[in-house]
């Protein structure tokens, strides 16, 4: 059996968060009643003229800047011809030889990989180079019935950004990391919500295998119809296995398009590509070329701090571990929650710990998003400071936290209501220690004869006498001093 090298390239279509369509003013609204957002332009009526959406051009340029692309001085729009009921003009307006963005790359990082391989991935910081990013119009949505198909044109003509990677992805896990990382960056730039399950980000995969030692790429097979990032990983893994088996049997692979079925976990043949599709591209005479310089200047101030920079800054500015910085920066709303909570913290690292442990598990147990978190970041900061100052114990902190999560009340109010203040007053603790020593001569004797653990029993007695309010660390010190 031979070893095969895997080559994967991804074409990702992204719905932009504009308010109106790409070439007409129809509203972009998902889930609206069918055919309620149409006009002569997006229904492809003769004589209707398209006009470009400025915001869509800006969002695509911003994406280009975030991904380190070159933005050539001029781009233009072309007609891509084909016949399909979801495209009533019989051509789709797209960009052919002068796209808005060229080159660039998507940086991967360890936490973008699937959990089960994060620790073992060989090259977590690989950058997947991009070929181009262009802007086009989306097509209508088709629904298939027994004897006919139904078309809803609400989506027709909405702005769609296509991000094409070079064939430089070498495993299903890298494809997973690429999509995860790309999605994060798109969300950071607020250009798309990039939710694959909602169709806001769609992905076609090209994959080929070739025997080790061969330079020429193998037969390219395209997979469509994946609607989760983990689906992409599974589909590619399935294809590698299938193609390996075919090649091992000495079969010749045909250039074909296959459909992924998530339920059965298999791909199946859609069609064999007999010849390269000929779309007869030509420049759309209805649309004038675009000079990009002013557009780039407009969006440059909107380039956000990117995930990689944020991760590095969290580690250096707040002293959190690289791993924790990664988890926090993975999710933009979580990252801003952390920054608000850590702003006035005595120890930001402890704030991060409370967020990553207590807060995330409470949120996930109650299926609440961070945006709807009942605890405000300021309150969390206050709680962690109160614990760090020793005013309440960590154990009491958990109790207060649970109450905060349930009621949204400030920690100070809850501590007051429950009478939870930790006793750190030396005089009061000394008095309690004296009581405990007097009442437990046996434990005292054991301690003095060398059984040092007996001090824990005495400490427990002090805590009991104080009804849990004594600062255990202070109590321990006082006891040790008194028994010395």
């Amino acid at each position, binding site marked *: 059996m031979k070893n095969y090298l895997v080559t994967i390239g991804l074409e990702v279509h992204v719905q932009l968060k504009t308010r109106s369509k790409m070439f007409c003013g129809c509203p972009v609204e998902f889930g609206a009643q069918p055919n309620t957002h149409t006009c002569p332009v997006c229904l492809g009526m003769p004589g209707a003229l398209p006009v470009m959406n400025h915001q869509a051009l800006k969002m695509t340029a911003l994406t280009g800047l975030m991904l380190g692309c070159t933005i050539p001085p001029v781009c233009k729009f072309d007609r891509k011809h084909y016949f399909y*009921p979801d495209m009533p003009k019989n051509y789709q307006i797209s960009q052919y030889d002068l796209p808005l963005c060229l080159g660039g790359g998507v940086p991967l990082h360890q936490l973008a990989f699937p959990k089960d391989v994060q620790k073992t991935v060989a090259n977590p910081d690989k950058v997947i180079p991009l070929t181009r990013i262009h802007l086009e119009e989306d097509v209508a949505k088709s629904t298939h019935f027994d004897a006919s198909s139904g078309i809803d044109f609400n989506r027709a003509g909405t702005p769609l950004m296509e991000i094409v990677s070079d064939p430089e992805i070498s495993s299903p896990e890298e494809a997973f990391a690429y999509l995860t990382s790309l999605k994060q960056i798109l969300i950071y730039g607020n250009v798309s919500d990039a939710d694959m399950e909602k169709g806001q980000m769609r992905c076609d995969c090209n994959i080929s295998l070739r025997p080790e030692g061969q330079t020429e790429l193998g037969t390219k097979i395209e997979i469509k119809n994946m609607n989760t990032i983990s689906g992409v990983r599974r589909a590619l893994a399935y294809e590698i296995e299938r193609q390996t088996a075919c090649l091992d049997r000495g079969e010749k692979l045909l250039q074909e398009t296959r459909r992924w079925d998530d339920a059965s976990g298999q791909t199946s043949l859609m069609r064999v590509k007999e010849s390269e599709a000929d779309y007869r591209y030509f420049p759309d005479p209805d649309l004038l070329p675009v000079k990009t310089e002013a557009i780039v200047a407009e969006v440059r101030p909107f380039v956000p701090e990117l995930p990689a920079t944020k991760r590095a800054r969290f580690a250096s500015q707040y002293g959190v571990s690289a791993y924790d910085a990664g988890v926090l920066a993975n999710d933009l709303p979580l990252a801003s929650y952390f920054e608000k909570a850590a702003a006035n913290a005595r120890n930001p690292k402890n704030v991060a710990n409370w967020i990553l442990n207590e807060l995330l598990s409470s949120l996930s147990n109650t299926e609440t998003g961070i945006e709807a978190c009942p605890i405000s970041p300021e309150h969390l900061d206050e709680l962690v400071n109160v614990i760090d100052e020793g005013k309440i114990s960590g154990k009491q902190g958990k109790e207060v936290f649970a109450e905060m999560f349930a009621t949204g009340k400030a920690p100070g109010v809850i501590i007051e209501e429950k009478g939870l203040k930790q006793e750190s007053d030396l005089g009061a603790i000394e008095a309690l220690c004296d009581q405990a020593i007097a009442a437990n001569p046996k434990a005292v004797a054991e301690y003095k004869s060398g059984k040092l653990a007996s001090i824990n029993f005495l400490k427990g007695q002090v805590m009991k006498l104080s009804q849990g309010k004594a600062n255990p660390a202070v109590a321990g010190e006082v006891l040790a001093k008194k028994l010395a």
Partner: protein
Amino acid sequence: MKAEFDVRYTAGLARLNLSEAEIAKFQSQLSQVLEYVEELKGVDVSQVEPTAHANPVFNVVREDEPRDGFTPQEALANAPRQANGLFAVPKVIE
């Protein structure tokens, strides 16, 4: 050089069913058009920037403001068949 125009291929792309007589007729007509275009190749354009437009106008855009278009009834007025607010078409199989 005599320009060749592949009528059969182009008709296929345009989903046109042409008879043999039509193919022959269009073959000669379109070849004449191509010959004419060939003549234009004689013009020196080495100093001219390629463009798809006659006017040097750029960046005609609109702001991202939504506005109302057709009602669903208007949108579907030309539909040969409709069902549940959708344009009904012969079944397409991907």
